[in-house]
């Protein structure tokens, strides 16, 4: 997608209008994550496009920060590779502009990069993100308590602001978050940091049930690495699955083995397809809820 499509969008309150991100969850959605520029700008473009071909409904594109406190080893290494390749916020926006896909994008990054960008803390970043066509932001080190300035900027420029809900999130805090979230809510399947796992956490069901009353798509992430994972998460009530480390693993291994970019892209597309198919199957296994 080229940036011009949305560059003219006027400031508005995204939560009160339709959301491209939320719309992407009409059917059980597959939301992959890759770090932009991992391991190089050009290869990474191909990888992201492969995910789009593989069926991604939304793509979370990581803008790497030097201190990724919420990430496990897999994504930490992706960050290191991307930074070593010269990734900066400005290059990131160029990356988005250079992407030739038709899938809505969320930018996942840490707050300091958003804060530092441009002349006006927070606002400059969001303005530029909106200009290149980014639909929303995911900021792992920004809890709802500190999010008002970013929420305001996102509202101003029509971006969604995705919050994460953890297994430990409950009560007033959950309400507080759900009042501020837009696009989708990122349901953290288990405690800890990102990373692919053999088996799924059983926190997911409990968290999803706490979220039942909220009318925002629920995307479950942390540990999902196979189509069967995806199916069972969606069966348990999720509107979509977020998959990062399992995909980054493919990039990392390919990079290590010096595999051709096309080969790695093909592998990514194949896993993406498996995950998307899994999500769809999961949806078929449960009585589809009425969407209001």
């Amino acid at each position, binding site marked *: 997608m080229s940036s011009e499509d949305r560059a003219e969008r006027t400031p508005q309150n995204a939560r009160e209008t339709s959301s491209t991100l939320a719309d992407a969850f009409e059917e059980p959605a597959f939301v992959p994550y890759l770090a932009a520029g991992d391991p190089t700008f050009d290869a990474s473009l191909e990888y992201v496009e492969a995910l789009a071909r593989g069926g991604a409904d939304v793509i979370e594109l990581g803008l790497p920060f030097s201190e990724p406190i919420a990430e496990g080893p897999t994504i930490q290494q992706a960050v*290191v590779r991307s930074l070593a390749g010269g990734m900066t916020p400005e290059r990131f926006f160029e990356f988005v502009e250079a992407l030739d896909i038709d899938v809505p994008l969320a930018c996942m990054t840490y707050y300091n990069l958003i804060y*530092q960008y441009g002349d006006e803390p927070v606002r400059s970043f969001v303005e530029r993100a909106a200009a290149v066509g980014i639909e929303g932001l995911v900021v*792992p080190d920004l809890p709802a308590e500190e999010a008002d300035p970013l929420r305001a900027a996102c509202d101003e420029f029509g971006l969604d602001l995705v919050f994460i809900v*953890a297994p430990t999130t409950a009560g007033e805090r959950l309400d507080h978050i759900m009042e501020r979230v837009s696009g989708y809510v990122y349901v953290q399947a288990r*405690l800890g*940091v990102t990373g692919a796992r053999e088996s799924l956490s059983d926190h997911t069901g409990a968290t999803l049930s706490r979220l039942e009353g909220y009318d925002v798509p629920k995307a479950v992430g942390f540990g999902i690495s196979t189509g069967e994972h995806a199916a069972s998460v969606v069966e348990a009530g999720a509107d979509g699955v977020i998959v990062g480390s399992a995909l980054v693993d493919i990039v990392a291994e390919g990079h290590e083995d010096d595999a051709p970019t096309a080969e790695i892209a093909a592998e990514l597309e194949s896993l993406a397809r498996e995950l998307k198919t899994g999500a769809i199957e999961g949806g078929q296994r449960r009585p589809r809820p009425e969407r209001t």
Partner: protein
Amino acid sequence: TKFGDYGGQYVPEALMPAIEELTDAYRRYVLNNEDGFMDEFRERLADFGGRPTPLQRADQLSARYDTEVYLKREDLLHGGAHKLNNALGQVLLAKYMGKERIIAETGAGQHGTATAMAAAHLDMPCEIYMGRRDINRQRPNVFRMRLNGAAVTPVDVGRGTLKEAISETMRDWATTVETTHYVIGSIVGPAPFPAMVRDFHAVISEEIESQTAEKLDRSPGSVVACAGGGSNTMGAFAEFLDDDVELYAVEAGGSSLTVDEEAGVAPHSASLSTGEEGVLHGARTKLLQDGHGQIMESHSVSSGLDYAGVGPQLSHLVDEGRVTPVTVDDDDALEAFHRLSQDEGIIPALETAHAFGFLEAALGPDGDGSVEFAEPIVVNVSGRGDKDLEAAIEETEKRDLENAPEMEVFDQ
């Protein structure tokens, strides 16, 4: 939770409930002494830690500078630095909160050893994250932690120093938050840590206040403390914030105050003096960062000052003009290290040496006289130098320092 615009709670959502729980515990136990927490804390600090630490007149420095210089002897605290004030407070708090496990990060190893000691003392399992590079630089402290029964987990990410160790400890905490307390080692991190750690260290300035009153029948004129994260600094300043006392925070000037943006390296750790506002490790504060907001690798001859951030309250106090930040470079810190060792019989930590380097720069024979200190000057001797012997000697050998002792005693 804020100091002006600084501070806050910039952490992953998974940690927020723990931080709320901690905030509640801080209020109840620390601020309101519920269940006699503060009484037990103070008693253990006295009996196990060795408080009060003395306030000693520095006879030779007072003569050298023709002014009254007093030393607050935190180097005499159990473990060899002020760090135990905070570590003991937090481990005890974790016990009151029903936590079953302690984690902490450490750079130079001082906070790690203090935490390991406190955890052993209070019978709590303990795991310390430490950068691989620091592990190999600080062997004695690693030994001490292991001897105290703590697990020491190497962090291989990045340069393997404090910054990476903090990030890694936060990751552990995000996983184990329900049973585990993270003992942050300075007045950094998300609220309530900066305030809570300050309160545990405030005993330093409380004692300075009562000791100057008792010995000199007055308040200190100036308080000088080195500042990395800033816990000894705020501990030494806390009681004087509203008083007519000059407060100097001495940062590590490293080899130069310039930066190498390309390499992402700042050859110093002067966040208060040169840093820009940003968000790191849970708080908004002054940071060493590049133009994009990536955190710089800081540097100091003293690994305990070697951190790209600083406590948010100090950032605020500097902006307010209440605290004066100054810098002392590696060379001057080493000279001050030797001066205190030779003249006063106290081998200071390299961190601490920076505070004395500032006195010399301002008041010494070659000093610039730029600062007119209000008397008496109290310098916080935040730690002893035993941990730094090898490093100090190695760094001394690289330089042509006027007061460096010969070290040719050993075989071959």
